[in-house]
């Protein structure tokens, strides 16, 4: 497609004792894609994402992220990616602004750039007047939006989102995905996991994970056509049934 792949995984595997969380997955993600990782809880999505972002080491297989090897250059990967974890990752006992300053600071943003980006971001989020409010007091949807905004504060070319819309109401979810699409439209790549089947439709390409393996991969249109289903929900149920879960 366009240039070198942003992510190239080959037979990537991670075991925890006898349990194989991720079983020889291979795929590529290209620049400017919104790549979806679809699967039930425990299918191995988060483990795969944590391997690609340098948080855990693979047991075997290879993966190159932004040209860096996940075994030897995980710190280089961390410099260039954004990551929003499934667990809420902002400090609840700090204000919105204090959180922004902290995360901006640990990514090495200088004071000028930081205040400029914080302003932009708070305007976009419509949180300008709440900047000195504790994060604890924000509703879940806003917290998640803020977490995403903080994850892209340093403008990473590649962002990992682990179930970004968990526990968020449908209206905010739609806003959220529009915002993600916006970021992708600026030429960035987003890798997102979800177990909401309707959200898969936002993705340019997606892979369906079942029991640690990739059961299907392609654009939503291709997948519907190939498996003869009407929506992702049906596809997912078919795949889960065929692999015996």
């Amino acid at each position: 497609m366009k240039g070198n792949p942003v992510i190239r995984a080959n037979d990537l595997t991670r075991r925890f004792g006898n349990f194989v969380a991720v079983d020889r997955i291979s795929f590529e993600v290209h620049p400017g894609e919104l790549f979806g990782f679809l699967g039930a809880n425990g299918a191995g999505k988060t483990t795969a994402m944590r391997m690609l972002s340098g948080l855990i080491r693979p047991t075997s297989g290879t993966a190159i992220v932004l040209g860096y090897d996940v075994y030897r250059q995980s710190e280089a990967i961390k410099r260039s990616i954004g990551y929003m974890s499934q667990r809420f990752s902002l400090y609840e006992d700090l204000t919105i602004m204090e959180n922004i300053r902290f995360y901006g600071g640990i990514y090495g943003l200088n004071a000028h750039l930081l205040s400029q980006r914080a302003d932009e971001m708070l305007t976009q989020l419509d949180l300008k007047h709440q900047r000195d409010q504790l994060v604890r007091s924000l509703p879940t949807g806003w917290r998640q939006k803020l977490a995403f905004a903080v994850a892209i504060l340093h403008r990473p070319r590649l962002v990992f989102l682990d179930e970004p819309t968990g526990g968020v109401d449908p209206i905010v979810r739609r806003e959220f995905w529009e915002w993600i699409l916006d970021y992708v439209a600026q030429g960035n790549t987003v890798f997102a996991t979800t177990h909401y089947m309707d959200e898969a439709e936002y993705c340019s390409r997606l892979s369906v994970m079942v029991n640690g393996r990739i059961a299907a991969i392609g654009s939503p249109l291709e997948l519907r056509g190939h498996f003869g289903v009407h929506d992702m929900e049906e596809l997912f149920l078919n795949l889960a049934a065929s692999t015996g879960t």
Partner: protein
Amino acid sequence: MKVRVIMAMIRKEFAQFFRDPANIRMLIVMPVVQLLLLPLAADYEVKSVRVCIVDSDHSPLSHELTAKIAANPHMHVGCKAESFEQALEGMERDEIDIALLIPAHFERDLVRNQNPVLSASVHAVNGQRASVGSQYLLQILADFNNKVRMNWLQLPKFNPVPLVDITHTYLYNPRMDYPSYMVPGILVILLTMVGFSLASMNLVREKEIGTIEQINVSPVRKSEFILGKLIPFWILGLVVLTLGLGIAAVFYGIYPRGSVGTIYAFASLYLLAILGLALLLSAFAQTQQQVMLVSYFVMMIFILLSGLYTSVESMPPWAQMTTHLNPVAHFIVVIRMVVLKGSTLSDILPHVGAMAAMAGILLPLAIWSYRKHF
């Protein structure tokens, strides 16, 4: 290492610390209460030794001895038992500390130079009380002995009364007052507990709430992370020290004879070692309970073997060896030297060396043990 990154971490720690009023209370109330209460309770002076005298002689000399013992301000002659057995029963009931038996014919034997034997039985469940009590009694008896010899015996050719009398003066703490001795030591314990528990709990709390993952996925270096966690508690430790020195001056009138700068310099080094250890332990703990339990265990050993309560010199050799590896023991020795003796930096150099070595090992170890990936 980037200063900006470390600064961002320090600012965040302080913002979180001062957001919670419980932290501020702990920082101020704990030193005040400990320093005001503990030195008063930890008083080892034996003020009143309860003596029971069993007088089987009933002679003028035995009465004189009894009166002499009773006249001593530290002695309290309570009971007058008829038999030694009766006195021992009193000891069983915890009513007396020492039973002194004056045998029959005590006076006659003494005058005839037949070396009568006085026997004292000491209640030794409380070792401190027993040793100090019997010390007092021995002094009185020795004094009495000399007088008797002077008055009753004919002077021999050689004067049996020693011409040189050994007395002692307490240097550095002339009034032997306990606060001067205990307050600096307790200040060390305080600094240790505040620094150790705050730092270890803080790091493990981030693991529990999951924010540590967000840091682990960032480009923060391990050294930046550990320093970012260490420096705030290093500063808070020095704040506690300042508060403690203030209390020592205001409430106990204890002003260091040596330089306050020396104390701060050593405390700075000490905190590096202690916080390094705290962060090292937190690298292996997953929950706050785990790290609390381990910290409690470590602190307990450090404090009990520190020489705060029992002097290092009276420990068995193996225990004395361990104090070389015990940062708390070093600091207690140093702070007592500087506060009571006015020691200078050159006097405490061996301790500075030991502490620098500990900090130099523990800090890199804490950085090395911290895992950014699994």
